[in-house]
C-alpha cells in the first residue's frame, strides 16, 4: 500500500519545489538551478519507479482524500500513464539541462518555478482519472506554459503569447461547457464512472452526451493541434524560446493522450450514443492536419516555423493512427508518440544553438557559416532524419508501424497517401533548409575581422559539450527507441491491452478498497430515487412522443 503513495509524487514534488524556487531561491540562480535540476532528476527517478510499479500489476488506483470513486478524485497509474509520466520527466530533465547550459533560464524571471509547475501540470494530466481534474491540470499546464512561452520577452514573442493564451483560454472555456454538459447528461465526472454511465444512456436520448463528446474532442484537438484548431501552434512554437518549444513537444501529446483515454474508455465505438461520430471527425481533421504540416515544412521561410509545421505534420500522423481506434493502430500511435516527442525536442534544441549563432536569425537564408558549422549540421541532419521519418532513427519504424497498423482500416488508402506523400514533402523541405543553412552558407564569404579590431562582444561563441549534450541525447533517444523497438513495444502492447480492457479499468477504479472505512455509495435513499427515476424513464419511453419528434427534426 505504501508504494502507491508514489503515484502522487510526480505532482507533489514539483508542486512543493516550485514555490520554493519562486520564493526562497529567486535571488540565487545557482541555487535555483541546482534545486530545479535535482527536482527534475528526482522526477525521472520517481517516474522509473512508477513504471516498475505499473509493470508489476494492473491499474493502480490512488484515491485522493481516501474518498472512493466516483465521489472523490482518483489517480490511475497504468502502463500508459506511467509511460507518459516517464516521457515527460525525461524530456523535462533534458530540456532543463539545455536551458541551464545555454543560459536561457536566466533571461527572465522565474523560469525554474514555471518549469516545475509545467512538469507538474503535465504529469497530473497524465495521471488523473477524473474529467474535471483533467480540466484543472489543463489550466495549470496552460498558465505555466504561457509563462514559459513569454519567458525572456520581446515584442513578437509577447504578441504570439497573447494569441496562444487567448486561443487556449477559449479552449478551456469550451472544456468547462463540455464538462457541464457531460455532468448534466451522466451525473458523474470520474472517467471510469463516465464509461459506465454513458453506456446506460439510450441512443434516442443521447443528444446531450453526443454534444459533450464532440465538444471535448475539440478541446483536446486544440491541445493536439488538429485541424481546424491548429492555427495557434506555428505562431506560438516558432516564437517561443527554443528550449520551451522543445518542452512543448510533450504538451501536444497531452491532447493526444486525452483523446485516447476518453474515446477508448468513455466514448468507444461500442457506445450506442456516440458511435463512430468522433472517430470520423478526428480522421477528417487528422488528414488535413498532416497535409498542412507537410506543406508548411516545405513552404516555411523561417527555421523555427518550419520545425513548428513539422510538429503539426507529426501530430497529424499520430492522430491518423489514433483515429483508427484499433489496438494495433493504438500501439503504433503510442510508439510514434514517443518518437515524435523526442524528434520535436531534438529539432528545437538544435535550432536553439543555430539561431543563437546566425546573424540572419532564423530566416532560411544563406549567411556566413557559424562556429561549429559541422557539428550543428550533423545534429540538424540527424534530428531532421528523425522527424522526416528516415532510418535509422525511430521515425522510420514509427511511420512503418503506423502504416502497417492502418492496412485493415476503411480509410487506409487516404491515410497512406497522406502520410507517405507528406513524408516526401517533409523530406524535401528539410533537405532544402539543411542545404541552405549548412552547405550554401559555406559558399558565403566570411568577413574576416581586421587584425587589431576588438573582438565583437556578441560574437557567436562555440557551444560547450554540456550545451550540445541535450540535443544529442534526444537524438540518442530516437536511436534507442529504434534499436529497442522490441522491448518498448512489448511494454506498449500491455499498455494498449489495458487501455482496451474497459471492464478491467472500470473494475479497478470503481471497486471500493477493502480496507476503506468511507461509505462507498450515496446510501439507500439515493438508490430508491434512482429506481424511481428508472421507472419514470421506462414509462416515458413507452409513449415515445417527444423523442420521436426530435428525431424527425434531426433528420
Amino acid at each position, binding site marked *: *500500500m505504501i508504494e502507491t503513495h508514489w503515484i502522487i509524487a510526480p505532482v*507533489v514534488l514539483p508542486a512543493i519545489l*516550485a*514555490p520554493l524556487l519562486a520564493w526562497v531561491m529567486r535571488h540565487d540562480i545557482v541555487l535555483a538551478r541546482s534545486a530545479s535540476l535535482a527536482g527534475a532528476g528526482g522526477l525521472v527517478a520517481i517516474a522509473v519507479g512508477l513504471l516498475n510499479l505499473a509493470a508489476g500489476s494492473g491499474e493502480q488506483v490512488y484515491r485522493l*482524500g481516501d474518498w472512493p470513486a466516483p*465521489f472523490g478524485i482518483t489517480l490511475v497509474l497504468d502502463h500508459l500513464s506511467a509511460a507518459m509520466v516517464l516521457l515527460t520527466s525525461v524530456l523535462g530533465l533534458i530540456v532543463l539541462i539545455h536551458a541551464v547550459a545555454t543560459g536561457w533560464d536566466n533571461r527572465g*524571471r*522565474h523560469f525554474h518555478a*514555471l518549469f516545475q*509547475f509545467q512538469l507538474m501540470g503535465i504529469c497530473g494530466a497524465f495521471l488523473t482519472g477524473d474529467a*474535471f481534474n483533467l480540466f*484543472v*491540470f489543463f489550466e495549470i499546464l496552460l498558465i505555466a506554459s504561457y*509563462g514559459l512561452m*513569454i519567458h525572456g*520577452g*520581446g*515584442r513578437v514573442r509577447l504578441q504570439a503569447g497573447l494569441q496562444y493564451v487567448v*486561443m487556449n483560454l477559449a479552449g478551456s472555456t469550451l472544456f468547462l461547457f463540455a464538462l457541464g454538459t457531460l455532468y*448534466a447528461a451522466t*451525473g458523474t*465526472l*470520474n472517467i471510469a464512472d463516465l464509461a459506465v454511465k454513458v453506456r446506460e444512456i439510450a441512443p434516442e*436520448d443521447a*443528444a*446531450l452526451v*453526443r*454534444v459533450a*463528446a*464532440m465538444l471535448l474532442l*475539440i478541446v483536446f484537438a486544440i491541445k493536439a493541434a488538429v485541424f*481546424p484548431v491548429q*492555427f*495557434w*501552434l506555428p505562431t506560438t512554437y516558432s516564437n517561443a524560446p527554443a528550449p520551451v518549444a522543445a518542452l512543448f513537444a510533450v504538451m501536444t501529446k497531452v491532447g493526444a493522450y486525452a483523446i485516447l483515454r476518453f474515446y477508448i474508455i468513455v466514448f468507444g465505438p461500442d457506445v450506442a450514443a456516440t458511435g463512430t*461520430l468522433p472517430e470520423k471527425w478526428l480522421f477528417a481533421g487528422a488528414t488535413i492536419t498532416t497535409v498542412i504540416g507537410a506543406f508548411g*515544412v*516545405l*513552404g516555411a521561410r523561417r527555421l523555427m516555423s518550419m520545425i513548428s509545421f513539422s510538429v503539426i505534420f507529426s501530430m497529424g500522423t499520430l492522430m491518423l493512427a489514433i483515429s483508427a481506434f484499433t489496438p494495433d493502430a493504438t500501439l503504433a500511435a503510442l510508439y510514434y508518440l514517443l518518437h515524435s516527442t523526442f524528434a520535436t525536442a531534438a529539432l528545437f534544441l538544435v535550432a536553439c544553438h543555430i539561431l543563437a549563432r546566425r546573424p540572419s536569425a532564423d530566416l532560411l537564408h544563406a549567411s556566413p557559416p557559424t562556429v561549429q558549422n559541422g557539428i550543428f549540421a550533423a545534429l540538424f541532419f540527424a534530428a531532421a*532524419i528523425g522527424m522526416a521519418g*528516415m*532510418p535509422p532513427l525511430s521515425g*522510420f519504424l514509427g511511420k*512503418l508501424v503506423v*502504416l*502497417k*497498423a492502418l492496412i485493415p482500416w476503411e480509410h487506409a488508402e487516404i491515410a497512406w497517401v497522406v502520410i507517405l506523400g507528406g513524408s516526401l*514533402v517533409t523530406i524535401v523541405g528539410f*533537405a532544402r533548409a539543411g542545404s541552405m543553412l549548412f*552547405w*550554401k552558407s559555406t559558399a558565403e564569404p566570411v568577413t574576416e575581422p581586421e587584425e587589431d579590431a576588438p573582438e565583437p562582444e556578441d560574437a557567436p561563441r562555440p557551444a560547450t559539450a554540456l550545451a550540445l549534450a541535450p540535443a544529442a541525447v534526444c537524438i540518442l533517444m530516437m536511436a534507442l527507441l529504434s534499436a529497442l*523497438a*522490441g522491448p518498448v513495444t*512489448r511494454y506498449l*502492447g500491455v499498455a494498449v491491452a489495458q487501455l482496451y480492457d474497459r471492464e478491467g479499468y472500470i473494475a479497478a477504479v470503481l471497486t471500493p478498497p477493502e480496507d476503506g472505512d468511507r*461509505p462507498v455509495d450515496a446510501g439507500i435513499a439515493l438508490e430508491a430515487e434512482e429506481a424511481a427515476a428508472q421507472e*419514470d424513464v421506462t414509462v416515458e419511453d413507452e409513449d415515445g412522443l*417527444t423523442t420521436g419528434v*426530435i428525431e424527425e427534426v*434531426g433528420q
Partner: protein
Amino acid sequence: MGGAGLLPIIALLPFLGALVPGVMIRAGRNAAATFTAIPTFLALLMLLTLAPGVMDGQVLQKSFSWFPPLGLSASFMLDGLGLMFAVMILGVGLLITLYARFYLSNEDPAGVFFTYLLLFQGAMLGIVLSNNILMLLVFWELTSLASFLLIGYWRHLPEGRQGARMALTVTGGGGLAMIGGMLILGDIAGSYELTDILQAGEAIKASPLYLPALILILLGAFTKSAQFPFHFWLPHAMAAPTPVSAYLHSATMVKAGIFLMARLWPVLAGTDPWFYIVATTGLITMVLGALIALFKDDLKALLAFSTVSHLGLLTMLLGFGTEAAAVAAVFHVLNHLTFKAALFMTAGIVDHSTHTRDIKRLGGLLTLMPITAAIGIIAALSMAGIPLFNGFLSKELMLEEASHTSWWESPWIVPVLATFGALLSVAYSFRFIVHTFLGKPRDESIDHPHDPPFGMWLPPALLCVIVVAVGLFPAAIAGPIVDMAASAVTGTEIHTHFALWHGITPALIMSGIAIFGGLILLALHAPLDRAWLATPRPEAKRLFDGAMAASVRGTRVIAEGLHSGAISRALAVFVVTTVASGLIAFFGRGLPEVSRPLLPIPPVAAAGWLLMVAATLSVILLHRRRFLALVVISICGLMVSIGFVYLSAPDLALTQITVETVTILLLLLALHYLPKTTPADSSVALRIRDGVIGVSAGVGVGALAYAFMRRDVPSISDYFLENAYSGGGGHNVVNVILVDFRGYDTFGEIIVLGIAGVIIFALMEVLLRGRAGRRLRNWAFSEDRSRDRHPLMMVVGTRVMLPIALLVGVYILLRGHNNPGGGFVAGLVFSIALLMQYMASGFAWTMDRQRWEYHSLIGWGVIIAGLTGAAAWIFGRPFLTSAYGYIDWPWIEEFEWATAMAFDVGVFLAVLGAVMLMLYSLSRMARYAGETVNLEPMDYDPSQKSVQTERAPQERGVPTEGEEL
C-alpha cells in the same frame, strides 16, 4: 548453418568502421583511407570464407527479433545473388577507397568523405544481405541518405547541392512508394521474411493487391535505378566527386533497383503487368539513355547517360520474365560493373590531369597518357560490346533474348529497338575512345596532361584485367558466379554455357548491325550534334526546379498565409467548428423527457434578468469606451452574484462578489496605463460576420444550458450531501467539496492563481526593461493627475475599514467549514481591504508600509496546502485525506478542528499572495511612471495650511538599476 553468425557482423562492420575516419578527421587522407579499407577488407574476407558454401547452394540465415508488432526482424540471409552483390560492393569499395585516396585533394575533408563512403557501403551491404523486406527498406532509405551526403560533398558547389536534393527527392519519393509496396507484399504473404515471401509467389500473383504492390515496389526500384521517366536525377548526381560517381552511381547503388527486381523476380515476374511495365520501361530507358549519351560533351555526363541506358537494358531483361533473360541480366550486372567503374575512374583521371571533362576540348591523350588511355579504351570497347571483352558476351545474350520477344503481338518492336540501342551504345563508346584518346590534342591550353600516380590507375587497371579475362574465358571465370547468382534469382538450378562463338545467330547479326551502324553514326556525329543541339528538348532540371519553386510558393500560401497568427480568424474558425459539430451531434439523436417543471418568474428575478440583458447589450454598444464598459460589466457580475443568492447558493455568491470586486478593481488600475478607448479597426462586414458567429455561439450555449437544466439526472452530488459532515467534518458542503472531496482540484487551482501572479511579476520585469518601460518613464504622468489624488474621505474611510475588513476576513476563513465562507473568499476579502489602501493612499505609500513579500505568501500557501495533504501519508492515508475532531477548551467551549482548515489557510494565503503580487506589479509600473511617495497620508490635509507632495527626486520610488523587490 556454419558461418551464418558472421552475416550480421559483416553487415555492421562498415557502420562501425564509419566511426573511425570521422573521428580521425584531422589525421589526413592516408589514415582515413587506411581505416576505410580495413573494415571493408575484413568484411570481404569474412564473406569469402562463406563463399564456398553458398556456391554449393547453401542459403545462410541469421535472425534476431527486433520489432515484432511490425513484423520487422534483424534477419540476414546470404544466397548466390546476395553473395555476388556483396562481393561487388566490397571489392569495388576497396578499389574506390584506393582511388579516392589519390583523387581527393588536400583541402577536401577526407575523414568526412570516407565516413560517408562507409555509411553507404554498410547500407548497400545491408540491402543485399537482408532477409526481411522491412529491414531492406531501412537500408534502402539509408543509401538514399548516404548518396545525398556524398553528392553534396562539395557543399560550396551549387550543382552539388541541387543534385543532392534532386537525387534525394526522387529516390526518397520512390523509397516511400516502396514502403507501401513492401507493406502490402508482406501483408499478402503473411510474413515480411524474404524466404517466406519467395515461397508465396502464387498467392501473391493471385491477390487483388498484387498490382498496387507491384506498382509501388517498381516505383521504388525505377527511381533508384534511374529508369525513365525518373532517370533525370542520375546525371545531376554526377556533381559528386568521381569516386562517388563510380561507386554509387554506376557500380552499386543504382543497381539496388535491379537487385530488388531480381530478388523478387520469382514472386512478381512472369505476369502481363510485370512484362509490360518493366520490359517497356527498360526498353525506353535503354534507347533514350543511349541517345542522350551520344550527344553529351561532358565525359561524366556521357557515362551517366550510358549508365542509365545500361540500367534500362538490365531492367528490360528482368522484365522479359524468362529464365534465360534473367541469367543474361545477372551476367550483365557483373560486366557493367567492371567496365563502367573503370570508365568513371578514367574520366576522373582525365579530369584530374587536364582539368576538363569536355570531350570537345580533349583529344590525342593516347600519347600523353598512355596507361590511362589503354584502360579507357579497353573498358569502352567492352561497353560497346566488341568481341573478346566481357560486354560483348552479355550484350549478345541480351540481343538473343530480345530477338524472340514479342511486344503487344508484334515480334519486331523489341528486337529492332534493342539493336538500335546497341547501335547507339557502340556510337557513344567509340566517341568516348576516338574523341578523347585518338587524334590530336584539340585545345592547346590544356597543360601537360600526364598519367596519374600508380595508386590512381591501379584500380581501373585491375577492373580491366577482369574485363578481358571474362571476355576471353567466360565459362571458367564468370560461369560459376553467374550460375550461383542466377539460380538464386530464378529459384531453379541454372547451368550456363558461355562461349565466345555460338555460330551465326540472330544475335550475332544484330550485333554486327549495331557495330557498323554505330561507327557510321559516329562518322556523322558533327552534323547530327548540330541538329540535336538545335532541337528543343525538355530539360529535366528546369522542369524539376520549376515544379519545386511552384510547390514552395503554393505551400507557402497555405502554410504561412493561413497561419499568420491572426487570432480573430483562428477563433472564428474554432467557434464555427464548435457550433457546427455541436449541432451535428445534437440533431443526430433526441433528448430524454423533460423532468423539471419551469419555475414561475417572480418580478425580482425578471428585473435582475432584464438588468443583465441590458448590461450585456450596453457592453456591446459601449465597449470602445473602456472605463464605461468595465463598469457595465461589473453589473453583469453583480447580477450573477445576486442570482446565486436568489437560488440559495450563498457560498457561490460570496465568491462571485469578491472575485468580481477584485477583478474589476485590478482592471481599473490596469486601464490607467492603457488607452481609454478602443479604435475601430475592422470593417463593418467583418464585424457583422463576427457578430453572427458570436451570437450563434451564445445561442448554442444558452440552448445547451436550457436543455440540461430541464432534466434531472441521478448524480454523485447526493453522496456529498450525505458525507460532508460524517466524513469531512463540515456542515458547509460546498466548502467540504472544495477542501476535502475535491481538495486536489482546489490545490491545482490555487497553483494556477499562484502561477498567474508569478507570471505577471516576471512579465512586468521584462516589460519594464524593454520599450514599454522606456515609454512609461517618459510618460507625462504628472500632467493628467488630479490635485487631490488621495482624497481625505477615502483615505480615512479605508483606514478605518482596514481592521474591520481583516477581521471579517479571518471570520470568514474560520467559519468556512461549516458556514458560507472559506479560505478562497477570505483571501479575496483581505485583498480587497489592501487594494483599497493602494487606491486611497497611493501605491508608493502603501508599498512603503508592507513588509511581507508576496512571493512568500504564494509559496507559503501552496506549501501549507501541499504539506497538509502530505501529512496524511504519515497515517498511511492517501494525499489530502482529512481528519477532524473536537477539542475542549476549558471555560470556553468545545471547538472542532479539521485538517482541512490548514488546507484552507493554504488556499487563503495563495489567493492573497497572488492577488497582491498582481497589484504589486501594477504598482511597480506606477512607480516606474514616476508616481511619488507622499509624505503626508493625504495630498490635501485641511488641518495644515501648506501642501507637501513630493520628496526630493532621489527619494522618488523609482527603483534603481538592479534593485530587486
